[in-house]
């Protein structure tokens, strides 16, 4: 066999460190590579450009250019010589806005709702802003002070000079925010407990957790709400039956907890066994091991799923209307049926307004979660 010429090699000159070759730069290079790389791609690009050019001007026309911004009744939003093809009827939203926000909450007491919104926003910012000072006090404020404060403000305690406002008068964004916030704040800790219970070594705890999770997950939310509002009074004398909104709150919170439990369980399963062993070998008892070693890692990997569940929950709050609670979407439903505003565009405008509100809240949550994710990922690579 012929000896290969390469069987021996000795480097005599060290290889230079070189900068990477320049990427194909510029906007034109990017266009070529991403949009015009093949006939199929060129065709797709053309189709997209045409549809964008066709749709966007129409949307602009309907929602901005031809939209009606002010007026006192349907006349403003009907076709007229001045505006032969009227767009969105924002005047309707403006007139009804207070109803959308507060429902039938007494007008003189609405400052209490505003104060609640402010207090809630303050708490959210304190907790969500990772660099905020004393976030431990922030957590105390959010989980202890805020719920009490909210109850005092919204429901009213005559002792403090705040007249009682029945929850049947609450409505609109107020109800949506209350239901969603309670659902989120209760479901995360309860879901964590259920997930831990499901992995517990104690058979009874495991059985209870599994039964609860599987039962609640196997039933539609509407059913849970109906059961909470219709069946509960059957077992509890009417006098002692909790408030209608409270019943819905409990239903939503329990429902969300079951989903959260499964999400957290996925995160727990992703933590390697070695982490548990290292924590136990150091002498950490169960709860401290969970709180300090396992859950921080589990929640981190599953953060996108947690936020996904929150977003689902936020939108599911619209279902409370089935038990006669006037959440935000229900107030729009009610308002669009108002004969004073009966025009061809009223419903569309109302629904688009609702969509914008839900989108803003959900997209905000999603963006925030993304930023936390990248931040955490970067921190661990430091």
């Amino acid at each position, binding site marked *: 066999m012929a000896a290969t010429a390469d069987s021996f090699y000795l480097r005599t000159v060290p290889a230079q460190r070189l900068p990477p070759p320049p990427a194909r730069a510029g906007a034109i290079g990017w266009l070529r590579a991403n949009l015009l790389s093949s006939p199929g791609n060129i065709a797709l690009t053309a189709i997209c450009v045409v549809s964008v050019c066709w749709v966007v001007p129409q949307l602009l026309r309907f929602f901005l250019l031809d939209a009606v911004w002010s007026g006192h009744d349907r006349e403003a939003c009907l076709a007229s010589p001045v505006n032969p093809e009227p767009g969105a009827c924002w005047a309707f939203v403006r007139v009804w806005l207070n109803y959308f926000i507060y429902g039938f909450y007494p007008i003189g007491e609405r400052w209490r709702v505003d104060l609640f919104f402010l207090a809630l926003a303050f708490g959210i910012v304190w907790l969500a802003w990772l660099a905020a000072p004393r976030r431990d006090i922030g957590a105390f404020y959010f989980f202890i002070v805020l719920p009490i404060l909210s109850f005092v403000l919204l429901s009213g305690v005559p002792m403090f000079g705040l007249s009682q406002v029945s929850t049947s008068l609450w409505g609109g964004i107020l109800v949506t925010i209350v239901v969603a916030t309670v659902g989120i704040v209760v479901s995360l800790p309860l879901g964590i407990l259920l997930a831990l219970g499901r992995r517990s070594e104690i058979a009874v705890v495991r059985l209870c957790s599994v039964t609860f999770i599987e039962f609640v997950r196997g039933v539609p939310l509407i059913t849970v709400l109906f059961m909470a509002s219709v069946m509960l009074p059957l077992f509890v004398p009417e006098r002692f039956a909790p408030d209608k909104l409270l019943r819905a709150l409990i239903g939503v919170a329990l429902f969300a907890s079951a989903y959260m439990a499964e999400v957290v369980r996925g995160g727990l399963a992703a933590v390697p066994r*070695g982490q548990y*062993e290292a924590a136990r070998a150091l002498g950490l*008892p169960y709860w401290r091991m969970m709180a300090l*070693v396992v859950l921080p890692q589990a929640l981190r990997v599953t953060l996108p799923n947690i936020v996904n569940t929150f977003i689902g929950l936020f939108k599911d709050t619209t279902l409370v209307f089935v038990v006669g609670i006037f959440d935000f979407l229900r107030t729009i439903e009610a308002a669009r049926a108002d004969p004073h505003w009966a025009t061809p565009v009223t419903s569309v405008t109302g629904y688009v307004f609702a969509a914008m509100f839900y989108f803003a809240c959900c997209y905000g949550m999603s963006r925030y979660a993304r930023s936390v994710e990248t931040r955490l990922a970067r921190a*661990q690579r430091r």
Partner: protein
Amino acid sequence: MEQRPDQPVSPRAGPAVEITGLHKWYGEFHVLRDINLTVARGERIVICGPSGGGKSTLLRCINRLEDWQRGRIVVDGIELTDDPKHIVAVRRDVGMVFQHFNLFPHLTVLENCTLAPIWVRRMPKKEAEELAMSYLARVKIPEQAQKYPARLSGGQQQRVAIARALCMSPSIMLFDEPTSALDPEMVKEVLDTMVELATDGITMLVVSHEMGFARQVADRVILMADGQIVEINEPNGFFDAPQHERTRLFLRQVLR
């Protein structure tokens, strides 16, 4: 030995570890068979043998990461029972270093080291940090204290793991194949750290295939195979005049 549940850490007397008649099964598989071993205080023991022989399982029984079906283990005067108080008391006193380091990835090196002193020993944070820094200096990586484990090499991670265990001031250290997951270039830095530790008088039980380390450091070397202790010998006898046929076979395999 007398149990003192109300006074878990006994005075420093008696053997460090006492294992009598230990049997363990995984289902039908008899993984530990009739283990009897007494480890004196300050003694350094290396356990070697073919894989699947029960070495790691035995080590993990000593801090009750594994439980067993028959026999008893007394660590530092505390009998390991199902009583969580006893288990936690033993774990506080027994440090463990794992094959795959098992550092906590979400905590910095320093936080890895201070976690248990703060949350198990209830040490003030500042004091725990000073203690951790002194042990990190001892394993020669104080400059990495603020980094996260993912940024460290395998050898550095394993030295952090050693420092983390030492921060609990254990009287016994268990090493479960501490160098087998390391790149060859990093084995030495970890072994050097362990040799240095051995001069300190701490009781060490090491499961390892590093025969050079065993010869240099061990007071006694144990061969385990098929769930049994086959031979216990001092290093010179073990390596130069092994008594059991299984030992001779094993040494022929590893010292080729």
